[in-house]
């Protein structure tokens, strides 16, 4: 069952004195229930706008959006109690303490007061809970935002850059927590620009650019689809080996870390070509593609420097 569905969603921001900016240009997205789903895209690709449209904060111009099986934002009130959200930088009332900010939310939703302490414990904020939020560091605010998102015991957790401002230990804790949630009965939808983070903890990924779907699926599948078929070869005489390989028609180059041979369907062809000239391979490794390379390759030329519209 899909927990998030978007079909042909379009959203253009119109501002006085500025040309209209299309943030979503027919976006399609499906997130199945369970696990951790990454949502990747360059700045200005429409990630946050997608979340804002899904959660009823922004109105899509056209297209259809569904959250936990209901139309969003029309029927959002029916399921909002099952959705925990951390959207961009957490928005709390700065003069109030972290605990009071959470208590106000918990009171409104008729949640027991003990739940506030539970989530404060969970994110490691119990000691600072009675301090004013305006004195919190960015990392502490982020932890408080995650605590607020978890307050409802959500079935779907939507997180926009949850690692922002966290120190390495905090990032590790949050990743472990998200992984734990994803392994349980919670679906985590993680929008992040940290490709390593997504590769590390996500089961599935959707990559968007310029408000459109670019690629998606299991992380391994996305990486496999972007594999170049390159191998890296270690030989004693690199200069002669390079000449031999080029003469045999291979696309080869020496980048100081061995000879990189691109577009090779079978590594044995490389070793055979070298052996025919008395050159013997000491090691041969298929070149690994990571999510960063896949992401850059998929979103190339999509305006990485454009500011996020919202």
């Amino acid at each position: 069952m899909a927990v998030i569905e978007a079909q042909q969603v379009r959203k253009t921001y119109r501002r006085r004195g500025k040309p209209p900016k299309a943030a979503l240009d027919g976006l399609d997205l499906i997130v199945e229930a369970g696990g951790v789903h990454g949502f990747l895209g360059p700045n200005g690709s429409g990630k946050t706008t997608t979340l804002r449209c899904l959660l009823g904060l922004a109105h899509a111009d056209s297209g259809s959006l569904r959250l936990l099986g209901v139309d969003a934002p029309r029927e959002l009130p029916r399921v909002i109690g099952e959705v925990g959200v951390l959207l961009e930088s957490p928005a709390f009332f700065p003069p109030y303490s972290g605990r009071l900010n959470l208590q106000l939310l918990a009171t409104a939703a008729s949640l027991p007061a003990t739940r506030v302490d539970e989530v404060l414990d969970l994110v490691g904020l119990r000691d600072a809970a009675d301090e004013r939020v305006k004195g919190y560091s960015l990392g502490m605010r982020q932890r408080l935002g995650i605590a607020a998102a978890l307050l409802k015991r959500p079935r779907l957790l939507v997180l926009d850059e949850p690692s922002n401002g966290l120190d390495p230990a905090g990032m590790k804790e949050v990743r472990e927590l998200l992984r734990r949630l994803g392994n349980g009965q919670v679906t985590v939808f993680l929008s992040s620009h940290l490709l390593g983070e997504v590769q590390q903890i996500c089961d599935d990924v959707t990559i968007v650019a310029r408000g459109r779907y670019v690629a998606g699926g299991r992380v391994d599948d996305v990486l496999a689809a972007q594999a170049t078929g390159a191998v890296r070869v270690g030989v004693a005489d690199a200069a002669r080996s390079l000449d031999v390989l080029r003469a045999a028609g291979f696309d080869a180059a020496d980048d100081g870390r061995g000879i990189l041979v691109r577009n090779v369907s079978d590594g044995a062809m490389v070793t055979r070509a070298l052996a025919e000239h008395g050159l013997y391979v000491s090691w041969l490794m298929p070149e690994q593609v990571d999510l960063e390379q896949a992401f850059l390759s998929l979103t190339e030329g999509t305006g990485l420097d454009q500011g996020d519209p919202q």
Partner: protein
Amino acid sequence: MSTDLTPQVTRPNRALPHLRSELARLTHRRLYRVIVVLLLAGLTLVSVVAFATSSKTSRIPPDAQQQYERAAASFDRTFPNVVREYERCVTQVPEGATPDDYCGPAPDRVQDAPRPEWFYPDKRYDATKNLPAVVIAVSVAAALLAFVLGASSGGAEWSSRSMTLQLLWEPRRLRLLGIKWLALVIVTVTTMIVTLVVALALAWLTSVLRGTPDAIDGAFDPGFFTTLGGTAVRGGAFAAIAGSFGYAIAMLVRNTGAALGTAFIYFAVVENAVRVALPRFGPEPFLLGSNSVAFLVPGGLEVPGASTTVSEPGGGLSTSVDMVQLTNLRSLTTLLVYLAVVSVAAVWSFTRRDVA
């Protein structure tokens, strides 16, 4: 990390718990607490001043008494001459004029006679004069502070972006706005009632200790407490209206400073500009300022309406101004119409515009 992370269905916000949460949100605000302290400090200061400048005694000092008796004797001596002069004047009134216009009011031995307080003002604290003034003063102060509280609480929701967070818990925008507005009205009116009770208690105490709780000249008028109660109720309503105006404007402009600035510009510039630019059309009965005063003052207020300029038979022009009676009910209606317009715009904007 042993917290239970199993999903559990949380019901959408119900009205009463949500209202309780909004009441707590408002009353925890530092501005609200400062307002309460300011109101109580102001009342205490006024009471101390009233206490210090009043006196329990009504006895007239001997020299003032002598001056009064001399003036009374002189009045008795000259009064028959004044009456005769008035009667002579009445016989000479020209055609088309009235005796009052030509000769002034008829002499009255009781009304015109010198009074002791002219020579030595009675310093006893007079409840009949002071209690209505206390109620109106508290109402005006409460209304001003309610406007600031409304504008500030609305603006702060946007500047801190806590509105975004709240919409992620209660996406029904109209309902969210309604509950927030209701919480503001409850807090404003409750604060007004508490302040008024404290103010009246202090005034009563001053009357007992430094004057008389009854009217100096005798018992209270029969309608005194009805009028006082009516003024207090209107004061509470006025504070609620002012708070609602502040909140609605802040929701419209999404900023506290802009909301306060809008109100300042309206009262300082727009109303005065309209008075200067359109005097012939008599804008006064339609302005917020005059309707606010008319709503608070018992019985309302008479204000200048449209003016008409006519040519005189003997040449020249004369201008007559129609006076308009703004009753409490009429001014309340005008205030509510203004509030409805601003509120509808705020609701429309809040439900239609994207939230950052």
